[in-house]
């Protein structure tokens, strides 16, 4: 009799236990520790990034200055802004043109080939333009007529690669300010 009572009690415990812990496939009674590790995120709360609408393409670049027929461009060696003998000769010709055309205002553009850091090349392009400007000033051209801008490697003459293209692109150009 006592044994049967014990059996009943233990069966009751069994039912209780299985009710508490469930079996692996029960869909209810999630363990509390799971919930503590789950967080929520509302993706709609983030602001939208303001993009630019696609607009019909018409090239509206900052008006590039005009080439001056009487002024030749000069070229440089890689990572250099010193003026070669050839460059000095060209600059001498350019100075003659400027002396003969006393009202022309010139912007000297410095350019690089596309090798190297973009920022370093912007600096290098400026150094090239400034070297050309200094030399023209030393030949008697007023500094007030000469301004400089560097385009670094942004405006190559020749888009291909190889020494011929690179040599073309390492240059200073002389353009009329409009």
């Amino acid at each position, binding site marked *: 009799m006592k*044994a049967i009572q*014990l*059996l009943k*009690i*233990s*069966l009751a*415990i*069994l039912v209780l*236990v*299985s009710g508490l*812990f*469930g079996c*692996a*496939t*029960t*869909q209810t009674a*999630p*363990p509390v*520790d*799971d919930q503590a*590790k*789950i*967080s*929520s*995120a*509302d*993706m*709609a709360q*983030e*602001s*939208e*990034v*303001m*993009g*630019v609408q*696609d*607009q019909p*393409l018409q*090239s*509206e*670049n*900052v008006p590039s200055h005009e080439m001056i027929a009487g002024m030749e461009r000069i070229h440089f060696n890689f*990572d250099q802004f010193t003026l070669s003998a050839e460059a000095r000769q060209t600059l001498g010709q350019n100075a003659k043109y400027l002396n003969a055309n006393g009202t022309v205002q010139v912007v000297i553009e410095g350019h690089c080939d596309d*090798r*190297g*850091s*973009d*920022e*370093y090349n*912007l*600096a*290098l392009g*400026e*150094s090239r333009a*400034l070297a050309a400007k200094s030399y023209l000033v030393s030949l008697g051209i007023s500094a007030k007529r000469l301004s*400089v*801008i*560097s*385009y670094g490697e*942004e405006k190559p003459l020749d888009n291909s690669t190889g020494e011929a293209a690179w040599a073309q692109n390492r240059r200073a150009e002389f353009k009329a300010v409009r």
Partner: protein
Amino acid sequence: MRFWIVSLALFLTLLPGPVLAVTEIEISAPGEQSIPLALTRLIAHEGPQADQFAAEFNEVLNADLDLAGLFHFVDPAAFLSDAQRLGLFSNQVDFSQWRLLGAETLIKGTYTLEGEELKVEARLFDVINRRLLTGRRYVGKVKDVRRMAHAFADQILKELTGEEGPFSARIAYISNQTDNKELWLMDVDGKRPIRLTDHRSIVLNPDFSPRGKEIVFTSYRAGNPDLYRKEIYTGSEAKVSYQQGLNIAGRFAPGEREIALTLSKDGNPEIYLISTSGRISKRITDNWGIDSDPSWSPDGDRIAFISNRQGNPHVFIADVFSRETTRLTRRGNYNATPAWSPKGDRIAFTRQQAGRFDIFTIAADGSDERRLTFGSGNKEHPRWSPDGRFLVYSSDAGGNRAIYVMRADGTGARRLTTLESDCRHPAWSPRW
């Protein structure tokens, strides 16, 4: 008495397996250890089936976790019945099935689609110890599914390594897709590109503010390389620095209140600090040579930059307070574009050798130089992810220049942008 013992024994065996020895999963660096992961596809909890969202979530998460380099994936073709079962609580998952496949970690999730609203529940389980590691519930629109997956990838890395992933961030870059170089923004996997500027001129070299709400960049819009600042959410834009000559290579200080940049107003490029309104607060370099490309140490005390003051371009480090300058790189004869890791320990840079640029890193004290990239193409413009795990850079190995990403040790490189346009100057945003 015997019944008591039997029922007690039954009682004990019915208890869920007591966690006796909990082994933590420890990973410190990519590539050190590879955890077998079973990545199951989201299943519809209720509401209509929308397999394309489940597939997209899976694809994004897979790519992010693959790049992370911490996992190898259990072949989905081998998955058993539990991959199709809904239960997401740890007592509902049949871990023995996953153990059988050799998986040590498991990702399961469900989605609910109601009109345009998408709810995703995703969970990461420790298969060995049969427990939930982390779970997330995302509510958003259908179009947010990729962001949900990136966010969960970030969460997984946080749970397993203690440091959140960088996948919810964005990458700003310069593309000439509209024929002009403009500023663009994309997800870190190269998807969802969006154009931010319409200058129709030349836009260069973006950098994010430390909180990611703003970008500075250089533009020739007004006929001179000036520095601009743009608010990402409002789209509003202002010229910050427009000194005569160069206003380039702007980099926000870690404190967000100052910007380091290169100015050439005195006829020679030097590094300056300016306020976010453009007022010059300090000159950092003073040298006859070219000084450019500043990159802040994460504590804001030092700035790495490039200078040709000793002949060839090399990386130098200046102390912001004393302005004392030391040379960092000793090898090579053309080193450029330093990028200080957000962890502070290493500096990435490019070096030209044998006519080609490759990416290197060096310890901030000048020791332990390592080459990260090899093979064809010029690799340039390295920038770190906000957690220092990855480097984003540009390479022309595929013909046109494109944006690539790799792990900080140089492994796992992959292209992010198409080869249809020229893309360069990537910058990884802070956590979004």
